[in-house]
């Protein structure tokens, strides 16, 4: 399937993200001839284990994530980043988990926004917010190059796009920039040929970045609300 890079908004020190920035980013997409196409939405859920007996908590992963992606409505993705595990399951797994009661959803986040078509590129601009509230906690950007599936062969094209995007963004003087951190896909057992599992791993990485950007523990708690 076509490859994509997922970016997250890195605000400058001392600034926070706001909805005005989201509007500016959307306008930037339109300024490079992006055609608005429709909405998109992904969800990410943190799971915590439900202990029935005095099991050793250390055995259970603390970073167990579940992700649903709009391009795969019948699939659900699990990631345990610390152990470099990614798993694709049928979307009915969520119902099974509910019944089993082995893991419960601790907190859920939504990534949603608009999709833009730019020729052979597809852009998704989205806000990050807890599912229960509308409080903007971050901005994500997906850049997909439709003709290719190989990450190695498309690297320079995506780099070229980033250059053009940064040029367009710099005209808006926003206090921050988009960052892309490429996970080591090989560690997750993924190949050069792009799949939705790669996307799931990128979102898990983005999540880790967004959380680590929040400085204090108190602020971290507030972040989820």
């Amino acid at each position, binding site marked *: *399937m*076509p490859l994509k890079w997922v970016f997250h908004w890195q605000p400058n020190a001392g600034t926070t993200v706001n909805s005005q920035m989201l509007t500016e980013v959307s306008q930037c997409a339109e300024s*490079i*001839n992006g055609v608005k196409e429709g909405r998109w939405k992904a969800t990410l859920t943190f799971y915590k284990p439900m202990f029935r007996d005095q099991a050793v908590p250390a055995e259970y992963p603390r970073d167990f994530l579940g992700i649903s992606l709009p391009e795969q409505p019948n699939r659900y993705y699990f990631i345990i980043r610390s152990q470099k595990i990614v798993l694709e399951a049928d979307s009915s797994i969520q119902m099974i988990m509910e019944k089993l009661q082995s893991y419960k959803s601790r907190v859920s986040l939504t990534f949603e926004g608009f999709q833009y078509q*730019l*020729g*052979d*590129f597809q852009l998704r601009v989205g806000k990050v917010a807890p599912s229960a509230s509308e409080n903007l906690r971050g901005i994500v950007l997906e850049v997909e190059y*439709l*003709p*290719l*599936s*190989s990450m*190695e*062969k*498309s690297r*320079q*094209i995506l*780099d*070229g*796009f980033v*250059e*053009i995007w940064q040029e367009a963004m710099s005209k808006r003087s926003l206090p921050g920039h988009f960052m892309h951190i490429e996970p080591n896909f090989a560690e997750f057992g993924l190949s*050069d*040929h792009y799949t939705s599992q790669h996307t799931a791993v990128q979102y898990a990485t983005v999540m880790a970045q967004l959380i680590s950007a929040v400085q204090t523990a108190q602020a971290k708690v507030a972040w989820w609300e």
Partner: protein
Amino acid sequence: MQQQQTQAARNPTSAESTAEAPPKQVALAMDRLAQAARLIADVRLGADRLLEALFVSAQPHQTTKPLHLFLKEDSSMRQHLQDLRTIGILALKAFTDQKRRFFPHLDDGLNGQSSASESVPKKHCGSQISTVTQQEELSDYRTLSDLLMHVEKDMPNMKIFTYQRLDWLKRASTLPCSAEEFLMDSSKEHDFHISNKPRLGLLGAVAADKVAVIELLFPSIFRAIISLHPAGSIDPDAVAFFSPDEGGSYVHARGFSVYHVFKHVTEHAAMALQYFLGTNTETALYSLLHWIFSYQTLFTEPCSKCKRLLSMDRQSDLLLPPVHRPYRSFCAIKSSSPQSISSTKNQTLDASHAYHVGCFSEEA
């Protein structure tokens, strides 16, 4: 239709009487030829469908479905051929007249006549001597098997497969599959009623006189399809580029990719093919194959003019890599002839250069 025909009949005479051809006449002539080309493609596809109907009827336990298919295709083929006859005669006359006036270098033996609209003269590969040397070398490759075997050595990383026309249509419908899957699948080959196995390897697998489609695959970069006409010859008549992940019955030498980048490359390739055929039909396929090979850098080579990889094309408002590779001075020469190489060093355009759409037209 009637009205257009009479107008086309009038147009050639009025064009001849003026000093320059008004663009409208040329556009009309081009339009007629395009219609003719489309009808020819329809006839080809119709022929494939007829073959398919015959193939299906060879299967056991068939209904009258293949017969209906056959009759339907037969009548539509006859209509296409009739339309072609009507359009073709007028279009060809009008176009030939204009071509003789404005593209004299495309006619053999009519060099030296320049005109305002055609500013790029035919560039020879280095000196006259090295051109002759090149032709002598290439005359060794008069058969398709010789040509492809030689080319395969020159072009590592590019996989070449040959097919009969109907077999390619079958293959196109089973795409996409990754190159690895394809190579693994070849061991569990389908049991075709026709005994040819059209997949792996070169002409050892397909009877050389039946090869009508050449597939050039650069895994993860592109797939190019060349049509040969007549089958078994070394005369290409169409070429198209596609994403390596594309599949479907539209993936053939006259089809168009759904992706803009490959659509643009295909359009450019059609012009390159016409140029190679116009220059020397015997070496056209050889040149075309090497020219296609230069596209392995489609997603990595920056534009030789603006030095960027991606650029916003002003005409289409699309972000595209450099989709143009020069073909006018393209020299598909063997690396073992140093004399030819040193004399081409003075050329400003060569095969390793790439240009964006906008950058290329300015350069030329």
